[in-house]
Structures are given as structure tokens and as C-alpha cells.
């Protein structure tokens, strides 16, 4: 078990290394010049040269890559081109906002999605199932920005129930009022992300539940005199949860990198919005940092998902 975990971790580190390397070179090969954005033409030539040296942009790409790797090992992700703040600091400012959104969306999707998925499976082929299937297809296929603007129009503009953007009304209030204010701002972005995530939770739960209902051991459970709620709770759910957990793990992993479009539309100060802003500003170090966080979270979530599944299903051994 310990050895396997070590193996998984080293594999994960390799994945992260490959991912950040690709990110580094893709950014460098973009047909744009960050210097032109970085440098204010009004600066004197000496100041300009100093800036370029400071960010290492005078060196060749391979040299820059090794400087980047060296910094990475010591936990230094460099400085932002845009406001010359350490990248770590910027990301750590944004990450809690993304995690807040993620936590709300994941918890709600599971709490709502699993019971609906179970219901659809129980009513397979009946009206309730057909209705749920229709909603799920809609939820999975809808273009998120469209949904976001729809919610904005209905709830923020027409009914004026929720604010149109941001995470709180500046200046930040104190104590409980602040939390309530944040909660109010979080409703619409959470709702948008919830719609698509709950749809996949319902879909995976329903499909695996239907498979499990047809298993011989479900009939065995009924033959012992269990009633339907007991059969579902003790014999079906645990088996059927495996695909749902896998998809939730993947979802969490990618969502740490922020929901770029949703966060941007709602001006939510998370990692997704940071990525959007950094792409516009050609802020390479910040982008590298954000993609590093994304890679790390995907790898970590994969390992956690595997552990949870191995705990649920004793047949699965943690192997390569």
C-alpha cells in the first residue's frame, strides 16, 4: 500500500513536470511579444533594458526554462509581468475564491444529483425518468456563458435579486454581514456551474444504478427480505457510486484551475478569472503558476479518487 502510494506519487510528479514544461514552451511560442506589453515606451532605454533583464527576457528560451525550473524547486514561481508581485502571492489570493465556489458546487451537485439519479434509475423508462433525462441532456449540452447571461438577465437585471458580479460589495463589510454579502454574490456563479455538474452526477448515478439493479446480488438481497430502500442503501449505492466518484474527482481537479468563462462573466476573483486576465496581459509567470496549480490538483484528486474507490470496492487493488 505504502509502496503503491509512492509509485502513484512519483508518476504524478512526472505528469506535473510534463504539463508545466508543455505550458512553458507553448507560452514562449505564442506569436506575441510580452516585452511590447511590459515596456512602457515612455521609459528610458536603460530602464527598459533593466526591466528586460529583471524578468530574464534577455536570455534564450532554454536558459529561461532552466531558470524557471530552478525557481520551481525552491518554491519561487517568479514575478508577475503585470504588477511585479510574486506569482505565488497572486495565486494564493485568488485560490480561496475558486475553492469556495468549487466546494459549494461539488457539495450541492452530489447532494442533489445522487438522489435524482437514483430516482431516475428506479423509474427507468417512466415519465419521471424521461423528464430527468431531458433535463440532464440540457444541462450537459448547454453553453455555460449562455446560461450565465441568462441567469444574469433574469435574477440580477430583471428581478434584481442578486448582484451582477464580483465577490463582495466594496468596501468589504465586517463580520456576518461580509459573509452574507459574499454568499449573495456567490449564488449566480455557483448556480451556473451547478447546472452542468449536477447533470453529469445525475447521468453517471442513473446509468450505474440501472446496471447495478440488474445484478444477481440485488435479487439475492431481496430474497433475504430486505425492502427497496434497504436494498438501495446497502447493496446498490456503494457499487453504483464508483463512476460518480470518478467523475466528481476529475471535476474537482479541473475546477481548481477555475471555471474560466463563468468566473470571468461574473467577475469572480478566482483562478479562472486570473487565467483570463493573464492571457490578455501575456503575463507568462502567472499563467505558468496557474497551470501548475491545475496540474497539481488534477494529479492529487486522481490519487484521492483512486484511494476512495479502492476503499469502496475491495476487489480493486491499487496498482500501476
Amino acid at each position: 500500500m505504502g509502496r503503491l502510494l509512492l509509485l502513484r506519487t512519483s508518476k504524478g510528479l512526472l505528469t506535473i513536470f510534463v504539463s508545466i514544461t508543455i505550458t512553458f514552451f507553448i507560452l514562449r511560442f505564442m506569436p506575441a511579444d510580452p516585452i511590447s506589453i511590459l515596456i512602457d515606451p515612455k521609459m528610458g532605454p536603460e530602464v527598459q533594458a533593466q526591466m528586460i533583464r529583471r524578468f530574464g527576457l534577455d536570455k534564450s528560451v532554454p536558459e529561461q526554462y532552466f531558470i524557471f525550473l530552478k525557481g520551481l524547486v525552491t518554491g519561487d514561481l517568479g514575478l508577475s509581468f503585470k504588477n511585479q508581485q510574486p506569482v505565488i502571492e497572486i495565486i494564493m489570493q485568488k485560490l480561496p475564491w475558486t475553492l469556495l465556489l468549487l466546494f459549494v458546487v461539488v457539495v450541492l451537485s452530489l447532494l442533489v444529483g445522487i438522489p435524482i439519479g437514483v430516482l431516475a434509475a428506479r423509474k427507468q423508462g417512466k415519465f419521471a425518468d424521461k423528464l430527468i433525462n431531458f433535463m440532464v441532456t440540457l444541462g450537459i449540452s448547454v453553453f455555460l456563458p449562455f446560461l450565465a447571461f441568462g441567469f444574469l438577465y433574469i435574477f440580477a437585471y430583471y428581478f434584481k435579486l442578486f448582484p451582477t458580479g464580483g465577490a463582495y460589495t466594496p468596501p468589504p463589510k465586517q463580520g456576518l454581514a461580509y459573509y452574507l454579502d459574499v454568499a449573495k454574490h456567490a449564488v449566480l456563479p455557483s448556480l451556473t456551474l451547478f447546472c452542468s455538474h449536477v447533470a453529469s452526477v445525475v447521468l453517471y448515478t442513473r446509468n450505474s444504478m440501472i446496471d447495478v439493479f440488474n445484478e444477481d446480488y440485488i435479487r439475492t438481497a431481496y430474497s433475504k427480505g430486505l425492502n427497496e430502500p434497504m436494498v438501495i442503501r446497502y447493496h446498490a449505492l456503494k457499487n453504483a457510486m464508483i463512476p460518480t466518484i470518478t467523475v466528481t474527482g476529475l471535476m474537482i481537479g479541473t475546477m481548481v484551475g477555475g471555471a474560466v468563462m463563468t468566473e470571468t462573466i461574473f467577475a469572480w476573483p478566482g483562478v479562472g478569472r486570473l487565467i483570463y486576465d493573464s492571457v490578455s496581459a501575456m503575463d507568462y509567470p502567472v499563467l505558468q503558476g496557474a497551470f501548475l496549480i491545475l496540474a497539481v490538483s488534477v494529479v492529487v484528486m486522481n490519487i484521492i479518487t483512486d484511494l476512495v474507490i479502492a476503499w469502496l470496492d475491495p476487489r480493486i487493488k491499487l496498482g500501476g
Partner: protein
Amino acid sequence: MSRLIEFKNYSMGFRDEDGRVHNLLDNICFSIEEGTAVGIVGESGCGKSMTSLSIMGLLPPSVVIQGGEILYKGTDLLKKSKTEMQEIRGKEIAMIFQEPMTALNPVHTIGFQIGEALKIHFPDTSKEDIQKAVIKQLELVGIPNPEARAMQYPHQFSGGMRQRAMIAMALICQPKLLIADEATTALDVTIQAQVLDLMKRLKESGSLMVVTHNLGVVAELCDEVVVMYAGRVVERGSLEAILDHPLHPYTKGLMAAIPTMTSGDEELYTIPGSVPNIENFEKGCRFSPRCEYCLDKCKDDVPPTKQVDDRHYVQCWLTFDGEGADYDNNNS
């Protein structure tokens, strides 16, 4: 002796996608006395499993019950509510299924699955007592080192051990009737013999209904035999009557198809053709297309059930020795 289970003109069928109902079990009549073992035999697709699932009330959703009664200790199981059936299942009537590989839940320990029935039917039992009962059951079915085995998962058990665990699971509440649906089919012969021994011992405490197409198993275990063909009981009687004096052409064919110690190099007898599909059942005798004694009326009219001996009944148009007046299905 009193009757534990009695099928009275029980009929059921399947509803297809167009809403038409196809009859499978047609006027099934037979009974199981307390403390005896009854074997249900016939080829695959004869409705044997549907007969046992009917007792359990675990029929698939497409099934339509078309009439008759299944009496358990004198009350009709078909009229019982969902909760009443849950009370009976596992406690009064238990069932062992065909597939030991898939009939156990892979994510729960063997011990949990065996103890579960006890936990539902006797909720006052303490955890320790359930654990003790589980270990005792495992010991009873001959699983070595039961304490450790109870903590293991099905994938850590071999096929024979899983089937024994299934038996332990079915027996934990000491049911009055045990239904074994092809319980030995998936096992190799040495394990089969052990499981048969185990089931033989069961007759001391309750009745047994053995669903099988293995006549060897029937000869080993049963007191009475019910021969089914395409959803009808074509012949039933004591083990001796059926094995030594089969009357129905189908039963005769079945007996002739068993290899014996004396059979030489000559080819074994086979009944020509195969069991018809539910949509192609004959109007008259369902066996008529494969029957070498087929008469004209066999094709058009359902044959009567005739009593030929004390407890020996046969459903056929042919004339037999000792045949009394046509036995009326309604007076069983």
C-alpha cells in the same frame, strides 16, 4: 403431514413490448409436504425458475399473473402485500440462486451478507449474537476457519465456497422451505457432492424444493418429482414412480437420455427438437411437435391431467394402465 406449499391452477405469462401477454406457466398444480424434498425438472426454458421466483414473489416486472393460487400454510402468497412478503422472504422461505459468482455482493464481507437476514427479521439480536450465528452457519456448511473467513469478501472465496456461503445465508433464519435453483450446476463434481450432502441434512429441519435439470441430483435428494415442459406440469409423482415407471413421452425421453453404467458405445437417446419459444407454443399439447406418439387431438386440445396411481399424475392424451377417471385440476 401437512402441505407447506400448494400450487393451485397457477398461471402466469409475460407482457411483450406491444402489450400482448404470452402465457408461460399454465395451470400449475403440485404441492410440497412438510419435511420432504420435491424436485422440479425439465429442460432450460420450461419455466422452472419462474415457478420458484413465483413463490418468492420476485418475478421480473414484465410478468403478469393470470390466475390460480400459491398457498403457503393455507394462505395465498399472491394476495400478500409487499411488507408481508418481506416478512416471509428469508425468514420462512429462502432461496439459493444459480450463480454463486454473481449472487453475492462484491463490496460487502461474507459475514455481513450472511448476518443480514438475521438482522432484519430479528432486529433485537445483538451484534455479538449475529456474529456468533454467522460463524456457526459457516462452520455448519463446512467452511474452515470461519472467524477469519467471515471477514473476507466474495472475491477471496472459491466458487464452491461461495455457494456454501449462499447456503449459509439462506439457512441463517432456519426457513421452513428452501428453494435451490440449480444450486449445484456451476460447481465441479466433488464440490457438488459436498453441497448435496449439505442439502440432504436440511430435510431434517424443513422442506426442500430443488430446481434442476440434473436428474442425478433429483435421485439423490428428492422424495417427489415434478416434470415440467414448456410451462406445464406434464407428470408428477414419487421418485420411484417417475424414475422407474415414467409414463409421459417427455419423461420417458428424459430418462432414456441419461447415461448409465451399462450403456455401451451406442449413441444416447435424444429427444428430437428443442423447447419452443414462448411465442410459438402449440394450442394443444405443447410437447406434441416433438412427441413420437402424437395423436391428432394432441395438436388441438390441451390434454387432461390423469391420476394413474395414489400420487402419480400425468397430463397426456395417451391411455395408461391404472388410469382412473380424468383428474380434474380443480380438486387438487
